[in-house]
C-alpha cells in the first residue's frame, strides 16, 4: 500500500512517539471513566501505532474513503485503544476524549460502527470480526479494489468456532488481501488463555489452516513493523496472520507488576501516577 494519501505530518513523528501518545490518551480516557480496559490498550498500543502510522492507507478527513484499508475491531472492549489511535490519526477530535463512555458520547465503552467515525464494525459479541473480514476481502476483490482488510482480534476469540470457520474460508478463497492481527496477551475474562482453552501451538495451527503466519513480540516496535511489512509484501495467494505476544499494561511498570486480570484494577489516585510514570518514559 502506498502512504501517499496520508499527510506528511503524520509520517514525521516516530512510531515510538505515536505509541506513547496512544498510551497517554488511553490512560486519560481510563481516568474519565475511573476504570476501563486499560491493560489491553497499553498492551496493544505498539501494534496500533504501526497499523495506523506505518501500514494502513486512509484519509483522516474522510474515514469512509473507498480506497482505505479496512481496519476491523472485532474486540469491542478494546475500543478505548482504537479511540486513542483514531484521535492520534486525526479521525476523532482530541476534545472528545473526556466524553469516553459517557452518556451521549460518540465513544461508548464497547465499540460500535454506528457511533464512531473510523469504527468499521460493531464488535463486542466476540468472534465476529474475522468472518466479516472474509466477506469484505471477497467484496474488495470483486470490485478490483486493492485495499487490505485488517481484523484485530484477541486470544480469547480463538476459542470461538466462528474464528476457525472464517480461517478455513479465508485460505480456501486465497484471500491475500486479508491480514488478521491476534493480540495474544494470554488473558481473558476468567484467567490466562493458555490455562483455560489452550490454542497452542498457534502459529502451526494457522499454517495448517493455510495462512502465512508470523509470531512476534508485539511490544517490540521493530519486530512489529517488520511483521506488517512481510504480511503486506508476501506474494503467496493466501491470507496472512500475525500473532503478537503482548504484555498487558505495557509502559506503566507498576501496573505491569500488578496481578493482571481482564479488568485491571486502577485506584482513583493511580491514574495521575500512571500518567507520570509514562511521561518519564517519553521517547526522544
Amino acid at each position, binding site marked *: 500500500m502506498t502512504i501517499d494519501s496520508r499527510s506528511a505530518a503524520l509520517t514525521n513523528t516516530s512510531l515510538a512517539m505515536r505509541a506513547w501518545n496512544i498510551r497517554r490518551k488511553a490512560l486519560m480516557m481510563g481516568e*474519565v*471513566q*475511573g*476504570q*476501563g480496559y486499560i491493560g489491553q490498550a497499553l498492551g496493544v498500543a505498539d501494534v496500533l501505532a504501526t497499523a495506523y502510522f506505518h501500514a494502513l492507507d486512509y484519509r483522516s478527513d474522510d474515514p469512509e474513503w473507498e480506497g482505505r484499508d479496512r481496519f476491523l475491531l472485532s474486540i*469491542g472492549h478494546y475500543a478505548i485503544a482504537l479511540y486513542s489511535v483514531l484521535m492520534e490519526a486525526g479521525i476523532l*477530535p482530541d*476534545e*472528545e476524549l*473526556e*466524553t469516553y*463512555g*459517557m*452518556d*451521549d458520547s*460518540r465513544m*461508548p*465503552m*464497547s465499540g*460500535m460502527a*454506528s*457511533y*464512531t*467515525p473510523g*469504527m468499521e464494525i*460493531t*464488535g*463486542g*459479541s*466476540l*468472534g465476529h470480526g474475522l468472518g466479516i473480514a472474509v466477506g469484505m476481502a471477497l467484496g474488495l476483490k470483486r470490485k478490483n479494489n486493492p485495499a487490505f482488510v485488517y481484523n484485530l482480534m484477541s486470544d*480469547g*476469540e480463538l*476459542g*470461538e*468456532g466462528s474464528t476457525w470457520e472464517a480461517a478455513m474460508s479465508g485460505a480456501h478463497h486465497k484471500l491475500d488481501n486479508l491480514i488478521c492481527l491476534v493480540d495474544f496477551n494470554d488473558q*481473558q*475474562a*476468567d*484467567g490466562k*488463555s493458555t490455562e*483455560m*482453552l489452550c490454542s497452542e501451538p498457534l502459529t502451526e495451527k494457522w499454517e495448517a489452516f493455510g495462512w502465512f503466519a508470523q509470531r512476534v513480540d508485539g511490544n517490540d516496535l521493530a519486530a512489529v513493523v517488520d511483521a506488517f511489512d512481510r504480511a503486506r509484501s508476501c506474494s503467496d495467494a493466501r491470507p496472512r496472520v500475525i500473532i503478537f505476544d503482548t504484555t498487558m499494561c505495557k509502559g506503566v511498570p507498576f501496573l505491569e507488576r500488578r496481578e493482571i486480570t481482564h479488568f485491571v484494577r486502577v485506584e482513583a489516585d493511580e491514574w495521575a501516577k500512571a500518567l507520570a510514570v509514562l511521561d518519564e518514559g517519553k521517547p526522544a
Partner: protein
Amino acid sequence: MTLASMARKYEPRKVTPASERVATSAMIASLAAEGYETVSAPFGHALVDAARKNDKIVGLTADLGKYTDLHIFGQEMPDRYYQMGMAEQLLMSAAAGMAREGFIPFATTYAVFAARRAYDFIAMAIAEENLPVKIVCALPGLTTGYGPSHQATEDLAIFRGLPNMVLIDPCDADDITGMVPQMIAYEGPVYARLLRGKVPSVLRRHKPDYKFQLGMAQMIREGNDVLVISTGIMTMRALDAAEVLAADGVEVAVLHCPTIKPLDLDTIAAEAAKGGRLVVTAENHTVIGGLGEAVATGLMMRGIHPAFRMIGLPDAFLEAGALPTLHDMYGLSVDKVTEQIRSWL
C-alpha cells in the same frame, strides 16, 4: 440522549459539561435498588448448597465464571467445575453430552450469547432431547450500558418459542436462592435469567413469607385500582412505584410471575377477572414475545378483557450509556413506571 444512534457518528461534536456527565462503567454492577439490602452471589452459594446434596451436579462456563457467580462453585468444588473457554456453542453441546451421561449440568454465560450464538445448540442438543441442562445467564434484558452486543432484550421471546424449555426471570436474591433446588428437581431443560454480584433482597421485605415456587405467580401486594403483572427486576420497580402511587391514593396490586414458561395463567386470569382494575404487564424485555404478549393472549383465550397496558422495552436496538439513564429513557425506572401508570388512569 437520542433514540437514533445511527445518526450519532455524523452528529456535530457534543461535549456535556463535566458536572452533568454520567459514566457507563460506574453503574454496571448496580441495579440502583435504593433502600434494599443485598445478598452476595446468591446463585453461586445456592448451587454449592445443592451440589453438596447431589453429586450429579456439575458447572460449566464459557469464560464467564467470575461474571455469573459460578466461580463460587468452582472454588468450592474445583473438580466439578469445567472452564470451556470462550466457546458458547461448545458450552451447550458439552453440557448436553454430560447430561446424556447422567449429570445435571449448570451452564453459564451472558444471556445474549446463550440466546443468540448458542441457540441452535440449545434447541437441538438440549431442548429437543429434553435433557436436564440448566442454563443460567447474567445480564438479562437491559442490565448493562454496553449496547446491543450485551443487552439481551429478546432472550425470553427466543426461548419461549422453544418447546420443552422452562423459563425463569427472577426478581431478587430470594428468587435466585429459591429457584436453584427447584430447577434441579425439575427433570428437563431450564433457562434462568441471573442477577449476580450484590443482588437486592426485595420480595421478602414486601411479603415476609415469600418463597419462590416454580410455575407459580404470587401476589406480593394487594390493591384495588391497578393490577401489575410483572417479572424479573420489574417486580421490584412495580413494588417501588406502587408505594409512590399509594401516597397519591392509587392502590396498585403486584402479581409477580418469575416463571415465564409455563405461565401460571390460572392465577393471572383469576386476578385479572377481579373486575375494575387496569391490568399492566411489566418486563425487562422487548414488548414483543415476552410476558406482556403471553398474558394478553392468555386472557383473550379465556374471554377476559380488562383495560390492558404493557411496560417493556421498545422494539429497537438500545443505546449505550449509564444504566440509570437508560432505564429512565426506556421506561424501566421507578419514576417512569409510576409516570406511565399514572398516565393510563
